[in-house]
């Protein structure tokens, strides 16, 4: 080989090495995701030697610290579900209203300040929400509804609802913003008012993006939220069974893990049960994310046509 060929060859090799290095970095996320699943399984699988998986999921009692531990996570599964549903009832109307207001109605001058403010709201750490809930909302709810305790599912739902608003608002706003101008113009040309255009042309066209926002920004985040619920829902592993349960303490899956990991002996059954709860949480959020991803992907495919 001549000198020139050698240097060209080196340059190609160099380029290729760099490319593979970048690829390795890009693949990190999926490797980490894989590792998370493996480690949760590895640490959590021990519990299924003591309890059947169906009993684990549907058992109505949680007493992990006893000599013969009773390991049923149904109270926590339902607790998470209750708090999440309550939070969505708060967050979806507020978040969606804000998204429509910012995208379609707000005067240009105040649009960006509002967006920035909502972005800042998203930056408030969850422990601060929990703290405010603890010192303000808990006593207030107790007095207002004359309850034995203000640490209730409702307290958690209200706080988590407010926390989910900025995420739902910003993802939905992107979806609304992405609706082509022609849709609006065609609607106006037919004599529709602005409000009719929003409800009958813009929102239906952005429905996939909005549902993805609700699943991702709302449900997935709220189910996984820890500190806030830990601090304000009372953490009693009682099965919530009616609408009145909103005014009673509940315990979520996330709170159980955070609360009990400190006292669980490393490598023991209790420790393993908490990792199994982690695995359940991981599976739920993973499925929610896949659904949202699927909706968004199909939506993009449909838009290309």
């Amino acid at each position, binding site marked *: 080989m001549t000198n020139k060929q050698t240097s060209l060859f080196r340059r190609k090799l160099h380029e290729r090495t760099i490319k593979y290095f970048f690829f390795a970095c*890009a693949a990190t996320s999926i490797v980490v995701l894989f590792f998370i699943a493996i480690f949760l399984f590895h640490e959590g699988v021990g519990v299924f030697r003591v309890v059947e998986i169906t009993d684990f999921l549907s058992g109505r009692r949680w007493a992990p610290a006893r000599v013969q531990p009773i390991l049923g996570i149904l109270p926590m599964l339902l607790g998470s579900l209750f708090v999440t549903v309550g939070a969505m009832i708060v967050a979806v109307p507020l978040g969606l*209203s804000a998204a429509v207001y910012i995208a379609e109605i707000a005067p240009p001058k105040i649009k960006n300040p*509002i967006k920035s403010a909502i*972005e*800042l709201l998203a930056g408030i750490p969850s422990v601060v929400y929990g703290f405010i809930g603890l010192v303000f909302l808990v006593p207030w709810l107790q007095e207002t509804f004359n309850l034995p305790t203000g640490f209730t599912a409702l307290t958690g739902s209200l706080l988590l609802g407010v926390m989910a608003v900025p995420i739902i608002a910003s993802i939905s706003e992107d979806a609304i913003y992405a609706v082509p101008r022609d849709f609006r113009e065609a609607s106006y040309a037919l004599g529709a008012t602005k409000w009719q255009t929003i409800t009958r042309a813009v929102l239906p066209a952005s429905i996939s993006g909005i549902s993805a926002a609700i699943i991702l920004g709302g449900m997935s985040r709220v189910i996984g939220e*820890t500190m806030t619920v830990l601090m304000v829902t009372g953490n009693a592993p009682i099965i919530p069974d009616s609408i009145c349960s909103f005014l009673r303490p509940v315990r979520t899956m996330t709170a159980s893990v955070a609360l009990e990991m400190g006292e669980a002996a490393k490598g023991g059954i209790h420790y393993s049960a908490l*990792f199994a709860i982690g695995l359940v949480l991981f599976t739920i959020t993973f499925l929610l994310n896949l659904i949202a*991803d699927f909706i968004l992907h199909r939506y993009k495919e449909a838009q290309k046509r």
Partner: protein
Amino acid sequence: MNRVQRRRFAQATAFALLAFATFLILAIMVGIISFVASQGIGAISWEFLTAFPRSGMTEGGIFPAIVGTFYLAMGTTLISLPLGVFAAIYLVEYSYQGRLIRLIRIGINNLAGVPSIVFGLFGLALFVRHLGLGVSLLSGSLTLAFFVLPLVIRASEEALLAVPQGFREGALALGATKWQSVYTVVLPTAVPAILTGGILALGIAAGQTAPIIFTAAAFFTPRLPDSIFSPIMALPFHIYVMASESAHFAVTRHLQFGTALVLLAIVFGINITAIIIRSQMRKRRRW
């Protein structure tokens, strides 16, 4: 009312409701901030910011928690920023659409959706126990780094995508290789926007509690952390233990408010910096 009037009325009502909802959200935010500020400002003093806790955590300051949060945020950013930027370079500059890329994207999206407490469990199992790093600054930084990684990747991707295609073509036309064009033209143009992503990662790392409970945080450390293997105090964890787990939670309320105010000020300071840098960049862009 005729039909036109009815439609106008419906529209006016709907718009008023939407505006009301939006301003309600803003009012809640202002309420939260002013509540914490008004209750917390009394606790803030030079001593509070620079002294160690005293008398079984019922007096004194939060200096070690501020330092711990600073180290943790820096550690997280040092690990996640390079990794995230390199990943974004691959996704934007090198990849073409295909199954593999779609898989990587699904991976990133799903990683972003993993609950923070699950990251805590993962960090406990992998870093603290299996790799033997113990409850330490390093374990916590690694755990948080993977927690913020999807966000850093997305911010960096946006930064790279904002560089006009012509810049790359210009470099290639001058005989640059792919890497040379990325290194000499694309990256320098994208640096300010990439930094914004890094700053946002700082802010998130500073505010997280759940991922560090099992991996890095200590209730009290008598000294400042002297190595990356020391457990640390952190502001968010400090608020949690003082408010929810401490036996003296009622008498230390003013300290808790003070700590919450310091944490909010740090997180907001970081986020506002990012917002300002971003808007400055948009103004200054000449292409």
